């Protein structure tokens, strides 16, 4: 049963000065629809970004806006939210928003719709309206340690295989190293070569590192579903493991939402500072490159382009690093139109790809990304730095019958790493 009272309570709590300023400043111009891939492919006005916030806006205008008391008295406030309002909105909130934030770019008022959709999800989560795909992932993340149900034993096996493949030992749970590597479930399941790639890159750079079997999962389904308790538990696991292992840095992997969860949300979820620094893998690679600790030989001469994961670039601020790194290993790199901060989402972020109910809409929305790639007049491969984007891109590419390999940036770097003369022995 939809718990409308709980949802209303959460909305009331979530409305701060920023939310209020956004909701008050919206001039209902509808320009945000021009940014949203879900509107672009369907032409259905209900997918207009700001419309997705209506439940939150109703509560704001009715109860929390300054002067709302007078409006209620005069009968000018919007009517109470109902359970069926929320049920009707669940699709818009969970299936039709990847939290990509492109709508903020086009909005003349600079309204951060994605952050507010996240807050709306918190109300929906309290009301019991989280889609099954996400609740299942959350249960697996809490009980097993991974939203895809990857057990520590499976991870250990995969790591051992990768260590053997690249001929570099990888020590688990090692106390006192500099860096803790965490991974996204999609990397462990589908793109595990990244583990071997990191081992080679770190060996060359003389970086000491480990992986914890207590906290190896970087993604945070709690944030995607809007359950901050689960989100806090998942971040807390990483923080506990990192502090137990006394590392100086935790490396956020090639995963957009994982970066947001750990770097930007985590300290707020836990209400305390970390004893370590969070560094994104792209930032670390770029730092090692600049310090001359990793060098490359040869270049990939295929025509390559780069898909910017929204949470890493537009909402994470890492724009330059992947380009500088690509410059080291790609001789025929081309940028998509409106790349970087303005890039178009893969269509599956924000938990959309974990929600089977949203699959048809997601594949439709991929047409916008496809058009952006097609605009280049054909490329040989697409590079990205988010395993979830990579998986979603691959599914879209297959769905549209395209012939376009997708490559992880770390793996590409490892392919062209100059292994000669290791900087230090790896740990």
């Amino acid at each position, binding site marked *: 049963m939809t718990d409308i009272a709980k949802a209303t309570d959460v909305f009331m709590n979530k*409305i*701060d*000065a*920023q*939310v*209020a*300023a*956004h909701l*008050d*400043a*919206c*001039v*209902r*111009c*509808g*320009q945000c*629809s*021009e940014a949203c891939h879900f*509107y672009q492919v369907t032409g259905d*006005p*209900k997918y*207009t970004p*700001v*419309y997705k916030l209506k439940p939150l806006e109703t509560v704001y205008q009715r109860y929390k*806006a*300054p*002067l709302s008391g*007078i*409006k209620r008295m005069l009968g*000018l406030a919007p009517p109470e939210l109902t359970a069926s309002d929320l049920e009707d909105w669940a699709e818009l909130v969970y299936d039709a928003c990847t939290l990509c*934030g*492109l709508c*903020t*770019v*086009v*909005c*003349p*008022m*600079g*309204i*951060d719709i994605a*952050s507010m959709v996240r807050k709306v999800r918190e109300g929906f989560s309290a009301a019991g309206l989280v889609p099954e795909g996400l609740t299942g992932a959350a249960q697996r993340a809490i009980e097993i340690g991974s939203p895809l149900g990857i057990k520590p034993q499976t991870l250990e096996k995969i790591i051992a295989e990768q260590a053997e493949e690249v001929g570099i030992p990888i020590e688990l749970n090692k106390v006192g190293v500099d860096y803790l590597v965490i991974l996204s479930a999609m990397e462990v399941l589908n793109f595990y070569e990244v583990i071997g790639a990191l081992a080679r890159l770190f060996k060359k750079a003389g970086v000491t590192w480990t992986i914890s079997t207590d906290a190896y999962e970087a993604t945070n389904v709690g944030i995607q579903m809007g359950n901050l308790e689960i989100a806090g538990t998942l971040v807390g696991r990483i923080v506990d493991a990192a502090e137990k292992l006394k590392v100086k840095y935790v490396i956020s992997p090639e995963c957009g939402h994982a970066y947001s969860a750990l*770097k*930007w*949300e*985590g*300290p*707020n979820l836990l209400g*305390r*500072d970390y004893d370590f620094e*969070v560094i994104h893998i792209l930032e670390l690679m770029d730092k090692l490159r600049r310090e001359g600790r990793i060098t490359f030989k040869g270049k990939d001469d295929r025509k390559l382009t780069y898909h910017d994961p929204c949470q890493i*670039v*537009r*909402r*994470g*601020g890492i*724009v330059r690093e992947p380009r500088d790194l690509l410059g080291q290993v790609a001789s025929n790199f081309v940028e998509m139109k*409106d790349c970087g*901060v*303005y890039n178009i989402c893969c269509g599956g972020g924000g938990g959309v790809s974990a929600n089977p109910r949203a699959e048809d809409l997601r594949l439709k929305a991929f047409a916008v990304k496809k058009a952006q790639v097609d605009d280049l007049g054909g490329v040989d491969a697409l590079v990205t730095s988010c395993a979830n984007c990579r998986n979603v891109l691959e599914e879209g590419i297959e769905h549209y019958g395209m012939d376009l390999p997708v490559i992880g940036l770390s793996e590409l770097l490892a392919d062209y790493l100059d292994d000669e003369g290791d900087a230090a022995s790896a740990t």
Partner: protein
Amino acid sequence: MTFLELTEGPLWYAAATIFVVGVVWQIVGIVLLGRKPDRSVPRGSALAGAVKANVLHLWPHGGFFNKTGFHLVAGYIFHIGLFVLVLFAAPHIVFIQDHITGFGWGALPRWGFVLAAEAAFCGLILLWARRIGDPVIRLLSTQDDLAGLWLTFIVMLTGCLALGESIEFLRALHMLTVDIWLIYFPFSRLMHGFTFVFSRGYMGATFGRRGVTP
């Protein structure tokens, strides 16, 4: 007391008071809702981000210029036309001098006035047509949005009627609509004229810390 004396006298002072108190109440009310301190380690400056976002969002960026041209043109010609009219039409300057500032400034020549009025009307009608005709904006629009548009239109229309200044009733009618508009303002989405700075600023501050301004 004549109709004009009423609308330019007690009613004007009441409307202006409600406007000022209402706007301040709204803004203070919004700001006092506060924001939780952000504990994440910043990569950039929140203040710089707030300023940058305010400037950046004055104009379409990120490849949206072509897609938002209608709003850009209609929005700007309406707002610029309106501000020029409000601040530089000769009767307005006299009114502002007598009732608010105690000093005046140079007025627009008549051709400038006509141009500004045409721009304001043209922009407002374009925005209005879009609000009624575009399915997205129709879905988003509330009674409040339409009331704001109507009121602004009526204020401008009565302003034109009062242009000759020879018929006192028309001038009083214009003042009456201005008074109603001022009273309505703080309760409505017309508040965007003030809240836009905060909306852009908070967003810019959030992302400025992250080293990016979307």
